[in-house]
């Protein structure tokens, strides 16, 4: 603790004088009203001994006076040491994207530096190392008194682009004096050495940085056949760390959350994001959870979603013939989820297509072929199907060299049997797809055997001959199906596998951006601010010409964000353009300080003066008491009023018996429990708004530990790694069910959410072993649960389409109320409402109606749990009315 104004402490010397003065002055007499005062009137002549103030009252007053003096001397706690050197101080702040994650702490540290400079009355100049938002050059401010500089520092915001070390080094050159460097800990390009030299040359230096550089940069994902590979770049460090990436839709709702481990010693971590194609097309933003910087956001434009497929058939005349035409099956398989274009090769190549499918179409040498080859080289995905034409005249645009002619398997003139498909090899994009047993291949073209053939084979028959081969050409790929695209040569186009294979192939292709037919410049539509939020573009942002977009670097003129018209948005991301985060060593020769230790200094003077005022107030009360003007009862009342506040706070402790509340089973997975809590809170609020039921905040319960008898409904999310229940928990749940409680078990991955929670459904039997679960039947719209409040036809949650199971209606035990409801629709995520009152999780396949229906199911569920089979009689109302009518 130090004193900012120590000379005030001299006033403490005057305290003895105050003591003497207080002792000399007698206390004021007590005042008493007295009717018989007439009898007292003459009695004042008795010798008066001087009245004395009691010593403890004197001490109290001296203490108050002493506290005031010490308080005015401005004592400071946690004050840092003085800055090295003398004269003006240069405060250098890294305000690039990497500073945003812990910006508040940086500002606190900057404040602390300003405090220290102010204490020594040293003027300060400010230099920020990222280019300013107005597009001006990097330049230090004039040297200003701290009070004038504070607003400038307070107005600083992290920039959504990297710092410019070279420009900062130039700005540093020539000046001299002591400096404080608030570092982001990253080199941000090769010019860091120059910058460090310039700083060292400037004068006595204080280096203020976080112990571990924490900035993480999300790189643009890589598209693979069945997944989007998310990549996170981070400074190399000695320990593993975890992060999470949120995949969000255009309205900011989370589609899914992927945890990612950042391994020690590596700079880039990768994790696959597997999403169904419909969802992948809704993906708009990838966001590193908890980072909050422009580098932690990847905006996905149309390029990630739109993959037009062009189909050209060799025999254009019969290609469209239903059930026999080459293009017919392709179109049927691709149309539901992609944009399909048909036409001649020239016309298709003139437009943007991601995938070109040639069904038995030979491309002869010539300009057309050159054009096609160039298109593949630039990243196009060429998918070819064999056929009589290709078998007869193989051209150069094939992944493998084909043997002349084709091969018949089975048939009247053959001893062999039609071949089946072998399981897909692990490296193939089709890996993981199940092979139906009934797909037969009767005819195929054969590849010339070679050493590379195995590596180029993505699918093969059970006898080992390749069915699908592929090879890379430049940035693109050529894929050959060794069979026709119609059912002539194989059953493959008739099976569901064909659709899945085509889907994966399309997912593998590079997307194309919107129709960039017009050469108009792409003007910024919405840009990221330093904290990674999409905001209207700043005034300095300028449009980018379409041709230069790929080469555009994020900066003040082109902040990262979305550019272009509504129907052709292009995303400019920091990831991929900014230098990879690379930690730097603390500057040699500088005073090292840690950002973590830099707490703002705390003046305690005001508190001391407040304490002195409190003492003086007590003194006033005591003086009044001494003069008889304050009754002890009044004083007791005052004290009671002061003590009453904490007493009231204790009364609000929640008693589960006083309020109806929904409960969820604590799983131990923090993410899952918070979703359960948000979900039940959202449902409770909905129920309170729509029905007469009044529900309180949801309660987390642990079966076997907590008393379950207060809760009508228990929500139990099940994950694949759920631990089996203890005996006490099983007993508690059985007791709960047998006494009218309802448990909603949610495996959170059925219907449209297939694949989101793999293994949960399999874990369920193990988990519920020992629970007295009655025989179950699918939930139908005739069930009481479907008409307990709303009349429901289906029962969606976040997902929809899976069967929901309830106890059989004939079961007369427990008044036909099913004690358990089992489903996989992840209802809590659909009901969830976050702190801002928004629904944080997107419904899948989506739409506001699905969410409304999910809430309605929730209301029905609560009503079912609260009223049992009360509405069961309503089921019979039509027949009763009918009978009455007769």
């Amino acid at each position: 603790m130090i004193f900012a104004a120590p000379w005030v402490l001299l006033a403490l010397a005057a305290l003895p004088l105050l003591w003497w003065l207080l002792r000399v002055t007698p206390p004021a007499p007590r005042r008493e009203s007295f009717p018989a005062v007439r009898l007292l009137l003459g009695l004042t002549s008795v010798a008066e001994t001087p009245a004395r103030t009691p010593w403890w009252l004197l001490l109290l007053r001296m203490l108050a006076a002493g506290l005031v003096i010490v308080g005015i001397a401005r004592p400071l706690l946690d004050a840092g040491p003085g800055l090295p050197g003398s004269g003006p101080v240069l405060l250098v702040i890294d305000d690039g994207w990497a500073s945003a994650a812990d910006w508040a702490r940086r500002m606190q540290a900057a404040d602390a530096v300003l405090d220290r400079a102010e204490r020594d009355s040293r003027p300060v100049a400010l230099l920020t190392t990222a280019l300013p938002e107005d597009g001006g050059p990097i330049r230090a401010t004039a040297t200003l008194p701290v009070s004038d500089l504070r607003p400038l520092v307070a107005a600083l915001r992290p920039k959504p682009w990297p710092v410019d070390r070279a420009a900062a080094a130039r700005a540093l050159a020539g000046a001299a004096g002591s400096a404080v460097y608030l570092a982001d800990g990253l080199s941000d390009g090769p010019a860091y050495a120059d910058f460090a030299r310039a700083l060292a040359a400037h004068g006595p230096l204080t280096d203020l940085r976080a112990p571990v550089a924490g900035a993480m940069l999300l790189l643009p994902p890589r598209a693979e056949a069945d997944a989007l590979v998310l990549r996170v770049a981070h400074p190399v460090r000695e320990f593993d760390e975890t992060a999470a990436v949120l995949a969000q839709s255009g309205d900011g709702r989370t589609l899914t959350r992927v945890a990612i481990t950042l391994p020690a010693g590596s700079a880039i971590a990768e994790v696959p994001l597997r999403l169904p194609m419909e969802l992948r097309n809704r993906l708009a933003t990838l966001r590193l959870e908890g980072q909050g910087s422009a580098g932690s956001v990847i905006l996905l434009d149309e390029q990630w979603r739109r993959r037009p497929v062009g189909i050209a058939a060799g025999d254009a005349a019969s290609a469209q013939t239903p059930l026999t035409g080459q293009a017919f099956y392709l179109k049927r398989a691709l149309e539901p989820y992609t944009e399909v274009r048909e036409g001649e090769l020239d016309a298709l190549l003139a437009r943007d297509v991601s995938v070109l499918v040639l069904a038995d179409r030979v491309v002869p040498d010539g300009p057309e072929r050159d054009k096609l080859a160039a298109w593949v080289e630039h990243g196009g995905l060429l998918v070819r199907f064999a056929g009589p034409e290709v078998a007869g005249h193989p051209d150069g645009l094939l992944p493998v060299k084909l043997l002349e002619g084709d091969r018949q398997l089975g048939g009247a003139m053959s001893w062999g049997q039609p071949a089946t498909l072998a399981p897909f090899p692990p490296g193939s994009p089709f890996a993981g797809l199940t092979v139906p047993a009934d797909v037969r291949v009767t005819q195929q073209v054969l590849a010339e055997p070679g050493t590379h053939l195995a590596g180029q084979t993505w699918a093969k028959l059970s006898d080992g001959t390749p069915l699908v081969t592929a090879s890379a050409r430049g940035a693109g790929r050529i894929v050959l199906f060794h069979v026709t695209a119609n059912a002539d040569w194989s059953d493959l186009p008739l099976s569901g596998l064909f659709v899945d294979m085509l889907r994966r192939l399309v997912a593998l292709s590079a997307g194309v951006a919107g129709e960039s037919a017009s050469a108009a410049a792409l003007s910024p539509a919405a840009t990221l601010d330093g904290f990674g939020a999409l905001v209207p573009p700043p005034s300095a942002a300028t449009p980018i010409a379409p041709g230069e977009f790929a080469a555009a670097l994020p900066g003040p003129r082109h902040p990262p964000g979305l550019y272009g018209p509504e129907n052709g948005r292009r995303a400019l991301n920091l990831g991929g353009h900014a230098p990879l985060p690379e930690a730097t060593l603390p500057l040699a020769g500088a005073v090292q300080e840690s950002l973590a230790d830099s707490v703002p200094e705390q003046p305690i003077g005001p508190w001391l003066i407040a304490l002195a005022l409190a003492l003086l107030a007590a003194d006033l009360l005591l003086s009044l008491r001494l003069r008889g003007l304050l009754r002890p009862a009044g004083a007791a009342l005052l004290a009671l009023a002061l003590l009453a506040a904490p007493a009231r706070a204790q009364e609000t402790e929640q008693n589960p018996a006083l309020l109806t509340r929904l409960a969820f089973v604590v799983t131990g997975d923090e993410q899952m429990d918070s979703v359960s809590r948000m979900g039940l809170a959202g449902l409770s609020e909905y129920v309170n708004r729509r029905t007469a039921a009044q529900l309180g905040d949801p309660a987390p319960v642990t079966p076997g530990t907590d008393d379950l008898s207060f809760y009508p409904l228990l929500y139990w999310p099940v994950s694949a790694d759920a631990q089996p229940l203890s005996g006490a928990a099983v007993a508690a749940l059985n007791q709960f069910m047998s006494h009218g409680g309802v448990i909603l078990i949610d495996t959170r991955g059925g219907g449209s959410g297939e694949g989101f929670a793999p293994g949960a459904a399999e874990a369920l039997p193990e988990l519920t072993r020992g629970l007295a679960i009655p025989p179950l039947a699918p939930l139908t719209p005739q069930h009481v649960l479907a008409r307990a409040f709303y009349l429901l036809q289906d029962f969606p949650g976040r997902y929809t389409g899976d069967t929901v199971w309830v106890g059989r209606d004939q079961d007369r035990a427990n008044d036909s109320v099913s004690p358990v409801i089992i489903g996989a629709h992840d209802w809590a995520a659909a009901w969830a409402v976050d702190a801002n009152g928004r629904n944080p999780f997107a419904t899948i396949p989506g739409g506001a109606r699905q969410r409304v229906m999910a809430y309605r199911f929730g209301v029905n569920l609560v009503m079912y749990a609260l009223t049992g089979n009360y509405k069961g009689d309503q089921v019979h109302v039509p027949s009763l009315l009918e009978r009455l009518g007769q």
Partner: protein
Amino acid sequence: MSQSLRRAESLGAHLPPLLVAAERVAATVAGGVHGRRRVGQGDSFWQYRPFYPGDPATRIDWRVSARSDRTYLRETEWEAAQTVCLWRDSGPAMRWRSAGAPDAKADRAGLILLALAALLLRSGERVRLLAQQGRAVSGKAGLERLAESLDRLPDDADGLPPQAEIPRHASVVLIGDFLSPLAGIQARIAALAATPASGTLLQVLDPAEAVLPYEGRVRFEGVGRSDTALIPRVESVRGAYAERLAAQQHGLAAICTAVGWSFAVHRTDHPPESALLSLYTSLMPEPRRR
């Protein structure tokens, strides 16, 4: 008010009905249920006496006379009521109460007054307040009317009984703290006694007024007047104060004795029954007056 009434009635319930000594009854005679233990006008049977010549024949009780050879007259007991005028001081000083006292002086005085009135009314006396528009009441219902008019009475600013017209030979009961100068009190009592009227003076004191329990440096302020007295050490003047209070009480007693009235002192921390009893005895006819 009804509560104080109940309390006053229960206070006097233990005493027999009070028969006010009426020395000079002829002037103040008024019909009442209160037998005088002698023959006279009234409703209650007193005695049969033989008929003497000169008695009006209408007074012969024929039924009794028919039982014997002699003729009897039926005589009734003489029933007459005495008027008692009550007053209690209701000035601001009377409403003062020290920290340890159970009641304010005015409350205690009112209680004693109503209890006395209840006793008197029970025995059929006529009771009125000593005030300008005082009306005598009698009977059981009179107590409520009395209590109401007691509440409506204006404050006495000077702490002295008002100069009101009272019936001659009435009894007067004055209750107050009588801490004002003796000369004023003497003038009022002399005026009342000259009516003529007999009477009693009851001084009601707060315990703090009686013993001056304060300590230390105290500024005393008068109640209802602007006198103040700064006493540096109250404990040192306690003796002198007690002397002055005793002198005041002696003076009051002397004033009362001079006109044949009685005087009593009551402290509010003492039970009101004692004060009521002393009033009772002072109002009761002495044996020689019977």
